[in-house]
């Protein structure tokens, strides 16, 4: 109990989890007992949530958005890894550099050009997401590659590996766990953008459209409940990434402080 307030302490997991549950409960109780003037009450949010699930297909819409999001992340990851690994060759470095700088672009107006170039609304949706995610992924991944130390490279070379082989062992295989971490951190970008693109192309529905409609009529309880659903999905996603890392890269956390 008392080591919850000691710097750098590592409390037992059961203690820690109980503490987290209590903190969440306090927050809920506060929301229940002291409703804010313009913020929907807990009861209203729950009612709205029920209605959204029962009659407005929240679950289907969430699944549709999730599938689109995972598709986009899959494509963006492959693309970004490719671009980042190419930086091993000096010739391609400007490409990666440019890709990282593209994250400053806003999407307003770009969607119009994409619509002209592509053949359907769905493709525009996917391209916007892929574009948005890729530039962030590349930024993260190139900085991971840049953290390679001289020592790591020299180690591979002294083992008699060729330049290509040492690149493969040290950078491609050796940094995969960090790459996974980059994808996890930047997955959130997709959720921010998915609501935007789903309002651009509303024919296919999705959770973004649901949110847009709730907001249009100031059904604030509905808005809050959808946001909470997105939050919950995000938290679950993060947890899954941690699990993946544990399964596939069991030694990657050897050097973290305990």
């Amino acid at each position, binding site marked *: 109990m008392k080591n919850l307030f000691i710097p750098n302490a590592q409390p037992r997991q059961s203690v820690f989890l109980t503490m987290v549950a209590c903190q969440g409960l306090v927050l809920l109780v506060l929301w229940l007992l002291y409703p804010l*003037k*313009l913020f929907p009450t807990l009861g209203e949010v729950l009612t709205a949530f029920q209605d959204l*699930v*029962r*009659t*407005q*297909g929240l*679950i*289907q*819409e969430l*699944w549709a958005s999730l599938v689109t999001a995972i598709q986009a992340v899959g494509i963006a990851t492959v693309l970004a890894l490719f671009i980042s690994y190419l930086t091993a060759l000096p010739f391609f470095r400007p490409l990666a550099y440019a890709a990282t700088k593209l994250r400053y672009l806003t999407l307003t107006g770009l969607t*119009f050009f994409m*619509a*002209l170039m*592509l*053949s*359907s*609304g*769905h493709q*525009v949706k996917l391209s916007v997401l892929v574009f948005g995610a890729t530039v962030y992924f590349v930024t993260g991944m190139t900085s991971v590659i840049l953290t390679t130390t001289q020592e790591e490279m020299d180690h591979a070379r002294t083992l008699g590996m060729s330049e290509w082989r040492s690149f493969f062992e040290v950078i491609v295989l050796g940094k995969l766990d960090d790459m996974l971490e980059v994808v996890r951190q930047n997955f959130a970008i997709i959720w921010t953008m998915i609501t935007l693109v789903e*309002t*651009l*192309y*509303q*024919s*296919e*529905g999705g959770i973004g*459209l649901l949110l847009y*409609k709730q*907001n*249009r*009529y*100031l*059904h*604030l309880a509905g808005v809050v409940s959808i946001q909470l659903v997105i939050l919950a999905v995000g938290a679950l996603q993060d947890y899954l990434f941690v699990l*993946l890392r544990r*399964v*596939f890269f069991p030694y990657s956390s050897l050097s973290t402080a305990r």
Partner: protein
Amino acid sequence: MTTRGKIVIGLLIVVALYFGINKVVSSGAVFKKADTQSVLLNSIELPIAAGSGNRANIAVPLADLPGTTPTEKGTPITWEVMAWNSQMAGMLANGGPRTTQGSAMAANGVDLQIVRQDDVAKMQADLVKNAADLDANPSTPGLIVSIMGDGLPGFSAVQEQLKKVGTQLQIIPYSVGKSFGEDKLMGPKEWLDNPKLAVGKTIACYLRDGDQNIALKWCADNGLKVNPDETTYDPEAVNFMSASDFLVAAEKYIVGKPEQRTKVVNGKNTGVKIDVVADAVATWTPGDVNIAKQKGGLVSIVSTKDYSNQMPNIMVTTKRWYDAHQKEVAGLMTAFAVAGDQVKSHPEALKRAADISADVYADKDKNGAYWLKYYKGVSEADRTGEVVELGGSKAFNFADNLALFGLEEGGTNIYASVYKTFGDVQSKLYPKELPSYVPLDQMLDLSLLKNMQTQYKGKAVAPADQQKFAADDEIRRNVSKRAWNIEFNTGQSSFTPAAEQQLNQLFDDLVVAGNLKVAVHGHTDNVGDPQKNQQLSEDRAMSVREWLQQKSTSAFPEGRVQVYAHGATEPVESNATPTGKAKNRRVEVVLGN
């Protein structure tokens, strides 16, 4: 376990999960969104009014134009507006973005700041914030926002939030002007002659607002079903493609890229995916200008010139401020009335108002001349050589307001019908989003306007715009044609009790379409003597005309309704069966110009 083994097992889990969840989600196991049925829309009941309006016809002399220096005196008020030409009178009344010396607003002790705000959600949020600020500090400047009259039912969703801060919506009982042509449904030319061609087609627009209302009304007038769900496609109805605003709606047609939806037949989801493109667009200036200049190929099917009462500019504020500032509201209304007369009767005043508009709207590429041009409305050739009408608004004066709110002798409260008509339509189509809307009488109190009416009696007020219909003018262009099964007593031209409801619906439809001529065509079945049938069909069409004219003289002046008799010469079904006969005993109403 080796890494390879992990990868294989991981992949298997992912594949199983994906297909498993997909199966569960698309089966009936989880709650599904209710399938939406396509709807054939009707309209609603109206207050009965009779009598006639007498309007004094007095010319107003040109007053001095307002100065350019801000007065910085008077009660501060903020007015949020979209870039909309219906506000010309308001612009002149103010003399600039902020009330200037020598303006009508300054003369009435008001210091008004006009702010452009194109985003409706932001307007709603600002109203709520203003109400909260007024609660904390009653000397906070009041906020008034201008929206489209037929969009107010949707806008009234803000009422819930306002109630949380202890107040509610209140309408200023005065309108500065209206859309008169600039909001329109644009579609392929063939739709003009054969509206049925729109079935199975898709109209792009900003849903649940004025532009869509035009399209909905046109569909209803032509007896076409509409599919309210923007994520499905019904081949037997008119479908809508949702755009995030009116310019994006035009863009959807210009770019012409397909969007994927599920096909619905008879309200049942078939699960078949289908690609749809925008075949038509409901939008307003400059959306229509963009379509004409960048792609072309669409003509104006129907516009607020035809449905001339649909879109008055309605100003709303909070009841808290309104109740505490009756004197200022009256001052505001008087200033608008004075400026309305000036804008309507004097080109120099209108030109000045357009220059002030350019200042307020602050689009670098649009000067006063631009706003003036599209205020008046123009006809231009599009890229394919088709002539399209673009723009068009009207400023109101005091007499126009008396007509709008039904304060003339024998007048109908036109705005009340518009509000209720479109409120009902939207809430019927979108019960989830707009389960109910605020009844108009909770927001509208006409006493200030009535006070002005007694005050103004016999004083110089320019006449209201009256629809002039030449009695001998034939309808040259049909806007809509619909058969109404108004039941008559057999062999007579008197109505059955059931007909009353049909007639009321017809009345509402025709009031909203205030600028169109009406042709009533009487038909009978083939029972009995052809000559008698000819006479009977004429008598029946005549009774419809009389009924309409008795109900509202202001909406149906002499010459607006024409009568045609066809006897049994134009059956729509075979006269061999009783149902066919019943179908043939009908009155068809054609709207056109």
